[in-house]
């Protein structure tokens, strides 16, 4: 299991990286942490003609926390974000979701943005991005653009990163005040991609009744499946949540498939169970003061 030969480019700056990517076009593939890409290369399931390694870029390694959002640069690892106090205080869901990502050694190299670009339908961070309504910033030699989660996460292992483009940052909006969140999943082994999982946010009004609720599921569709739950839960007291309608809605929305680890039927059932649990947790957290 050795990779095919590839040409190697390690630009020193973002501008140089974009020039290189522009030159390479379809032939160039970005290497960040490599924790998803290198297994594919080693198995020769992918064989790009050239890799553009971000390891030597000066910059692209900041976590920026503002009143409105947490902005994570392309070179920030899972572990760095997971242990970034300001970021995870701002969005506790990030910490909880990242706890589920693989194992510490993988998190030391793998980048947060990389796992979004990789777009595994069972990946946690794409679901967090979708749930929070965040976006990805992309740069190319001609210019820059942003893409919302919905637009960016196109299919299983497929994100809308175009030839010549580099995803430079991911932006997670901070949930509004009064929001509690939770992430729950079940994997066969600790650290494996989940059979199913869900991230939820629940926002309460001043009477501690649900004003807004949302869920994003992993492992039960081609991309993270978002299910708006406000209609199913609005007005319910946070300490007496009756999530059955929300669970039914979610189970009828998601689109799981059979594989060797679980049937579609089981995944549908499991997603509902996890949703019920996550909603209770999130509502309780919201009631305890949030935010998220």
């Amino acid at each position, binding site marked *: 299991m050795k990779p095919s030969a590839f040409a190697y480019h390690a630009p020193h700056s973002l501008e140089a990286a974009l020039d290189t990517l522009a030159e390479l076009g379809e032939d160039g593939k970005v290497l960040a942490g490599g924790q998803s890409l290198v297994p594919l290369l080693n198995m020769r399931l992918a064989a790009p003609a050239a890799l553009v390694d971000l390891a030597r870029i000066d910059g692209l390694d900041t976590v920026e926390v503002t009143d409105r959002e947490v902005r994570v640069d392309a070179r920030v690892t899972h572990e760095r974000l997971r242990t970034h106090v300001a970021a995870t205080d701002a969005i506790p869901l990030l910490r909880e979701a990242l706890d589920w990502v693989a194992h510490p050694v993988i998190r030391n190299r793998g980048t947060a943005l990389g796992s979004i670009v990789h777009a595994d339908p069972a990946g946690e961070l794409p679901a967090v991005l979708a749930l929070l309504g965040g976006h990805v910033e992309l740069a190319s030699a001609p210019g820059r653009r942003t893409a919302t989660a919905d637009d960016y996460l196109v299919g299983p292992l497929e994100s809308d990163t175009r030839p010549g483009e580099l995803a430079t940052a991911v932006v997670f909006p901070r949930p509004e005040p009064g929001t509690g969140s939770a992430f729950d999943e079940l994997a066969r082994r600790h650290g494996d991609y989940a059979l199913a999982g869900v991230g939820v946010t629940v926002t309460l009004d001043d009477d501690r009744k649900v004003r807004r609720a949302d869920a994003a599921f992993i492992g039960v569709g081609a991309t993270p499946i978002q299910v708006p739950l406000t209609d199913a839960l609005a007005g319910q007291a946070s300490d007496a949540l009756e999530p059955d309608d929300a669970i039914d809605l979610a189970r009828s929305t998601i689109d799981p498939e059979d594989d060797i*680890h679980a049937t579609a039927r089981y995944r549908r059932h499991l997603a509902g169970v996890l949703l019920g649990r996550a909603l209770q947790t999130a509502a309780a957290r919201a009631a305890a003061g949030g935010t998220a």
Partner: protein
Amino acid sequence: MTTKLVGAPVARSEDPRLLRGEGRYVDDLGQDAYEVAVVRSPHAHARIERIDLDAALEVDGLISIYIFEDLPQRLQEPLPLLIPHPAISHGRTQYVLANGEVNHVGEAIALVVAEDRYAAEDAVERILVEYEPLPAVVGPELARDAEHAVHDDIPSNVAAHLEQTIGDAPSAIADAPHRLSFRLDIERSASTPMETRGTYARWDADDQRLRLYSSTQAPTSVRAAVAAYLELDLAQVECIAPDIGGGFGVKIMHPWPEEILVPWVAKVLGHDVKFTEDRREHFVSANHERSQVQWIEVGFDDDGRILGLDVEFVHDHGAYIPYGLIVPIITSTQLIGPYKLENYRVTFDSVYTNTTPVTPYRGAGRPQGCFAMERTIDRVAAHLGKDRTEVRAVNFLQPEELPYDFGLMFQDGRAYRYDSGDFPGSLAALKELVDWDGFAQRRAAAQAEGRLLGIGMAAYVEGTGVGPYEGGHVLVEPNGTVQVSTGLSTQGQGHQTSFAQIAADELGVDVADVKVVTGDTRRFPYAVGTFASRAAVMSGNAIHLAARKVREKALRIASEALEVDAQDLELAEGQVRVKGSPDTAIDLNVVATMSNPLRYAFDEAARIATQFAQPGDPDAPPVADDDAPGLEATDYYSPTQSTFANGMHAVEVEVDPDTSDITVQRYAVVHDCGTLLNPTIVKGQVLGGVAQGVGGALYERMAYDEHGQLQNASFMDFLMPYATEVPSVDIDHLETPSPLNPLGIKGAGEAGVIPGSAAIAAAIEDATGITIDAMPITPSQLHDRRLAAASSTS
């Protein structure tokens, strides 16, 4: 008096080296060797129409490529059927490279030799093979249905049919007050050692000798195979099993195609050549085990006493049958467990499928047999509304009935006769260890919190230490070092330590002065191999016997030198000394020097030895007719039958009532392998086995689709447990010594894995009320079973 080392938890002498990263595994050697990669079939069953090498020949770093037609005649013969059995009516084995047809995904088609593995894989990718796909036969039942044939000339797909009986099971069942019949399934898993297969060969053209390093459990047999296929004298071939990163059975298979091809290519090219299998190859080209479908019919009385048991099963041995019927024969005999069965019939078909071949994986047919028998007992108990341990107790062979001969033939072709054991004692110990009687209370408390708990147990008897023999060589060097060697190899069992304990005890030396070499044909050319929990029993006793001979010789030499009767001498603290008068002594290394009449004064020992030199009898030869120079001896241990270890496991599981997720909460083991050589090592063997048992019960499954594609050929999808999936284990050791060998030991290597699936299935069944008749089981499968049960009762 030196403290006895056998039985002591001596720290392993292997460890410092391995911990410092100084181990020498096959791929650590031969840094300048050419490396090989293999073109493997992507089809489960196909005819090879054409192989186009043109594009591959352009690859940078390519040395050469070989296909079947390039091989010399001897290498165009099929690989051997290692263990023939009269019941095998249709034996087929594979070629080192496919001869026009492939019968499983992963079968070797072409061998690429290149400057390194990267280049070799580049060439493999560019070799174009055109196939005519043929229908694939997957799964034991489809094989037996025989709509399609794996091998054209075996339309039934059946390689062997075998029946063994005790008494008259059908009549006993017909006459029994209660009868049950049911089906039990076990799916495929595999040994999956952390180190894959590997072989490295050096041909020395000057000496006309071949040196082979292989990650094997049978180096002496690999040597013999290579000598035969390469048409060399045995004396020209040496095979060394260096540090081996785990075996668990898969590396007892030999010779692998690469074990023949690599030395052949090394000789042809006159250059070192190495094969290091990668993980993806290992999943499809290294053998599997376990898959069986078993049908049970049982008759029993009101107490749960089994009056007759009729078992029929189909054993899926994959595309070829190189290892004969060892696995199904073990199932068919070891199924009996600790129970007194007076009417038993077992029949099996061993069938071909278009899947990776099946040869032993730790447990070797026993987990399937244990699953059959223990699930049967649980069914009987459920039918009668009795406690499951009571039904077991009613059926136990009692200690005073042992030795007990069942009248069956075991895997070694010898009597299936239990030598010793105390099954009621084991059960009592187990019930106490797991607090079996307190479980009802624990369950009730959990239920009050909405949690589902269940408990289950399973018992096994394991034939260990099968023959025919192993040997040991023990030599005391003039510098005092004791060199011990035995032919079988080591895959982590700590033989360097435990065998040193045995020799040190006999010779009265510090264990640190004993150096043990295993698996090196330069040091010990005769051996059978490391499998069937046999190394400690076989080589342990052989080394004990050889050390005893050395001891006798040391006593004789010292007796003459000191002019003291040998009976009054003892070996202790590195000396031969007078009992009760330790000042009258000769160091053992001096005795070693004295054992050789040629004694140049190279060292202090030679000088001291001269003091004891007796005036020689001028008429006698310096080395007597019945003597030999050197303080050394070789001996062999060759038993008339296997020795039978036994044990019982109990498991408490929690099942999430909503997700059906299964968690092992408590795991208890009572284990009796006779005398413990080193309790730390034995415990480690048991714990490792338990982890594999848990893996086999809840996580690991070779998932083939109907086309014979293995869908989970990676560690991402073949779910070997991590630390988070393996429970803590409580162990209690009983020691019922074996009467069959001088050390009283029984094997311990496989025990831990055997009852895992049976005990965990029982616990899940107890927690959920759902009959568990197939393992492994996933939360998804359990959920489906619970849904089905709920809808059938509503």
